[in-house]
């Protein structure tokens, strides 16, 4: 290997400046940065799952409710369907964006919001029932991490709903400007990522919780 990649280049012919530089691709850079943020958020989930792995030993129930007392898999599957439907609706909004149809985008966003809100309602009801039974995060290490994981995911959904609301307003104000478009793409990454995370929460916390 040569010392540097320079030897084959003739300095007399080599371009020194890029005179027609158009600048970098703004949308590509923005979505890549946002994707990196999503991955760092995924790392937060990984740390929470690591804690869940550590704190789901029978020792961590501290004589309190066991996972089987806390978890209703069928109900959680309902939550899953609501979230997946919301994600699908957002997918249709993106398909409409591709064709440049503002009405389709707005419709998809509204659909995603409705089902996202339904998901939040279901989770709220689920956790609310537990609270009503006196099953609270303070009861044991296991319940602490269980509630934290589920609520942290729900918090993302709430933020996503707020963001969709803002997006709808901006869409109405600006149309398909560069800013609106890259934010819609970012929101799509965010929203679809929540579905992936939910699969982990659903399978490892809910389903596998009742297996043992």
């Amino acid at each position: 290997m040569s010392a540097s990649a320079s030897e084959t280049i003739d300095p007399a012919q080599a371009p020194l400046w890029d005179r027609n530089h158009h600048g970098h691709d703004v949308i590509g850079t923005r979505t890549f940065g946002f994707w990196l943020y999503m991955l760092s958020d995924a790392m937060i989930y990984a740390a929470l799952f690591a804690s869940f792995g550590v704190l789901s030993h029978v020792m961590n129930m501290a004589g309190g409710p066991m996972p089987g007392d806390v978890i209703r898999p069928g109900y959680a599957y309902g939550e899953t369907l609501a979230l997946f439907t919301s994600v699908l609706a957002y997918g249709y909004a993106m398909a409409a964006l591709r064709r440049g149809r503002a009405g389709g985008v707005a419709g998809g966003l509204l659909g995603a919001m409705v089902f996202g809100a339904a998901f939040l309602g279901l989770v709220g009801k689920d956790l609310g029932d537990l609270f009503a039974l006196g099953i609270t995060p303070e009861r044991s290490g296991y319940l602490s991490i269980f509630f934290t994981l589920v609520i942290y995911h729900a918090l993302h959904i709430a933020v996503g709903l707020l963001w969709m609301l803002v997006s709808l307003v901006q869409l109405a104000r600006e149309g398909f400007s560069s800013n609106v478009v890259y934010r819609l793409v970012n929101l799509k990454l965010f929203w679809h990522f929540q579905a992936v995370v939910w699969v982990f929460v659903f399978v490892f916390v809910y389903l596998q919780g009742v297996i043992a």
Partner: protein
Amino acid sequence: MVKKNWARGGRFLALLSTLLLGGCSSRNFWLFDPKGVISQTQLHYMIIDVVVNLAIIVPTGLLIVWAMWRYRKSAGAAYSPHWSHSNAVEAVVWGIPILTVAVLSYYSVKAIYQVNPYKPTVLASAEAALAPRPLEIDVIATDWRWVFIYPAQHIMSVGRLVIPVDTPVKFRLTSTAVTNDFYIPQLVGMIDVMPGMRVRQALMASHAGTYEGFSADYSGAGFSWMNFQTDAVPSAQFQQWTQQVQQAPQHMDYAQFNLFAKPDISVSGKPEYFSDVEPGLFDHVVGEVMNGKVWPTPMDMTENMVKYLQKQRARQAQMQGEL
């Protein structure tokens, strides 16, 4: 015993270098003056580690100095501004560290099993030779004192550990409030002492004497006073000591321990002895902590501690005067 001589030589070298640096008497270098089987093994491996490392580090350092001198600009030595790659050199620069790490890893893994606190293989033969079984001591770290319970003897000693020499001693350790580290530099390395958990440690003193022990992991306001002396004594003397403590007027059960474990800084450092200790006190304490028992630190031992320790010293002097 070639190995032993080698180890001794290495120890001498290590000692010499640090002596030159520190200018202190050798008995103060607790890590180089082990008095127990575990600490001797640990020193043995430390010397291997240091020698292997020095074999790489010293030549590299000398080479850097040489290069800095030889190729300084004013020297006018050979100059090849574009030389930046050589397969042979790169093989060597990757090879040397890989080789070193392989050798050290081998020794490290070997050493871990030899002094595994739960089952040190260096003590295995001594344990097997011992009839019927090694001395067992339960250690509880409170805020901020060391409690040593001898379950078979039903006695408890606070701030003073007495062990028979040449006898394996097995510890079970826990803490009431926060994490501490159990450490007797001349006998055994550190182990975390954690509330609600029970860890194990083992040691065997090979020389009679008095050795300093202390908590190594910061545990709050009384941490610096959390030291204890370890007396390694001949077996007969140990028997005598236990009998003496069994006559102590103070007794100990969980209810009393609950009061005893309240945060208290041992400024005077005077040992205390208890007889007739409740059987299973150690397990009881662990179980209580697992169930959420805490001995909280009051505000006046944290936020504004000005003159707190002076008052506590006066209080302890007064109490000892009354006794």
